[in-house]
């Protein structure tokens, strides 16, 4: 078991004909992900070769879904057109959309979030590395080889910092059930609590790592939720203890504003909920392993 993606996932890539789309689609297919098609308006009828296999390109998502029975879409469309691409996927009946694109205007995401509210569409990202169920399905830009199947669920607002944490687990022989990068934007799809709910009921997942950072209050909300609802051990790390207020630290959502969103407040909230917080990014894996003994 795992959450959201597995061997049965049928993936289309929106923006498959672009250089990033093609490169990463090929990496995903090489990992074993079932890439069934691509969408680029105006390029329908063409094919893109991934590891020697020809993949069909469609003009619209609805056509791609009809022809391939795809159930998941990954978005590599440029930022200016990405919100439209997400909405197109949702309209075509795709129930899991993973938006890798960085730099989507916030008010575009505000509209997307409103449009999918109350539907059964799940959005991961944008501005994220994607999702991976080790050994089964990789959708996104993370390096596959650092992962290994196992019992730890990982949820993170960061990309490379997640690789760091995963690598720490894998090097210690501890594998992962599913790892999700929820993205660094202020307005996004699934958040910590949505995914924790899924990990709670997933039998493969025995413990969870959450990696947060400055900005917003999602970690505080997750801490309160975990305290009341989550029964598995949780380790956490929060980046940005040294980040100055008022500055956007790379991610659009990583900003301390008006005195809120500070790392120290998040760490305090997590600890108050009984969650083990790693003192440094080098000890994320060790902190979790400490809980499982």
């Amino acid at each position, binding site marked *: 078991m795992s959450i959201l993606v597995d061997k049965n996932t049928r993936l289309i890539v929106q923006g498959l004909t672009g250089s990033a789309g093609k490169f990463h689609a090929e990496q995903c297919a090489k990992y074993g992900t079932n890439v069934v098609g691509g969408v680029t308006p105006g390029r329908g009828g063409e094919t893109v070769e991934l590891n020697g296999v020809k993949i069909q390109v469609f003009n619209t998502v609805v056509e791609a879904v009809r022809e391939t029975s795809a159930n998941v879409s990954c978005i590599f469309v440029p930022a200016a057109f990405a919100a439209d691409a997400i909405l197109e996927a949702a309209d075509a009946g795709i129930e899991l959309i993973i938006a890798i694109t960085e730099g989507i205007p916030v008010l575009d995401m505000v509209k997307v979030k409103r449009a999918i509210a109350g539907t059964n569409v799940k959005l991961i990202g944008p501005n994220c590395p994607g999702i991976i169920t080790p050994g089964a399905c990789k959708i996104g830009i993370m390096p596959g080889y650092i992962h290994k199947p196992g019992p730890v669920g990982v949820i993170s607002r960061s990309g490379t910092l997640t690789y760091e944490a995963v690598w720490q687990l894998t090097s210690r022989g501890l594998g992962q059930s599913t790892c999700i990068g929820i993205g660094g934007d202020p307005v996004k799809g699934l958040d910590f609590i949505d995914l924790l709910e899924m990990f709670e009921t997933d039998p493969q997942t025995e413990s969870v790592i959450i990696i947060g950072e400055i900005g917003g209050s999602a970690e505080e909300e997750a801490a309160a939720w975990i305290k009341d609802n989550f029964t598995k051990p949780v380790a956490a790390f929060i980046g940005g203890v040294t980040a100055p207020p008022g500055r956007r630290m*790379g991610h659009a959502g990583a900003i301390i504003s008006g005195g809120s969103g500070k790392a120290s407040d998040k760490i305090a909230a997590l600890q108050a909920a009984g969650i083990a917080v790693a003192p440094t990014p080098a000890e994320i894996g060790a902190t979790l392993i400490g809980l499982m003994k």
Partner: protein
Amino acid sequence: MNVHEYQAKEILRRYNIPVPPGSVASTPEEAEKIARELRAKKLVVKIQIHAGGRGKAGGVKLCDTPAEAAQLARQMLGKTFVTHQTGPQGKVAHKVFVADAPNIKREIYLSVLVDRTVGRPAFLASTEGGVDIETVAAKTPEKIFKEAIDPAIGMQPFQARKIAYALGLGGAELQTNVALLLNLYRAFMETDASLIEINPLIVDDAGKVIALDAKFGFDDNALYRHKDIAAMRDLNEEDPREVEASKHNLNYIGLDGDIACMVNGAGLAMATMDIIKHYGGNPANFLDVGGGATQETVTEAFKILCSDKNVSGILVNIFGGIMKCDVIATGIVGAVREVKLTVPLVVRLEGTNVDLGKKILKDSGLPIITADGLADAAQKVVAAAKKKA
């Protein structure tokens, strides 16, 4: 991106939101001319810098005559002002805003932002204007009124009425004030603002509502569709190192420590700063070189790091995922040869082909200190920097 008060007011004016008559000046002569044409009973001269707290720093002064306005402008222009938001180095006033100073009967706080918890635009309003809203939020949270807007249907008149009544702006002027609030929502959405803050919004003697001060922040990711707003960018207000870095697509933020760092990925970059601090050092910067750490980007990054005179050690921390460690190591070696570093350099690589990458660094004959793991790297750079300093 932030803009100056005078630019913010220009945008408000386009949306029919009342602001005091006034204009911006770069010289005392211009200030006098503006003041003369205003024919105001009372004038205000305000420095234009991207920071709050100008009044307390002596950057906002009242006067009565055009000659006095010129005199104030002379005192302010070219001077450095230190406020609680500028940092200790302060900011130089290159422009002043000269405007009519209305009689204030009441001060109100009004802002529009994106509420991250609901993912919607929201108004924040308070009858306690003219002071830091953070202070109000801490001391009297019940005095802050919040109204989130459904982006699908936009702001509705009833929502504007709710805010107006909560602020005591009902009465005879209700319709005018409702229009003002609806216009403010339109300004927020149409300019892709990340924040509009009017503090204070005032009620004058005649009961008229005016935006006495104004601050706009814009979503950098949406500037491509607002050329007019992008043109308002003032490079004087930005750290020259950050401007240089942005030309090379590097994400750099200068800090005041002595250990520079270069990292791929924003989250790992922040975490690297944190671990430097954890082991007793002080980070000199945030720097995300992005996914493709090529020789060109690494070279440019080294140049920017070395332009900071406080730096006494550099830590490169790269998690090679898609980009292999040997390729990154070759890039680092090339960059170090080109830049000729004068401070100790610690490199920590992890990921694909890490052993090959380390070998390339070792065989280069350059004084590069290699590290195993993040903790080892941080400890090594802190020790090396202490020795150097």
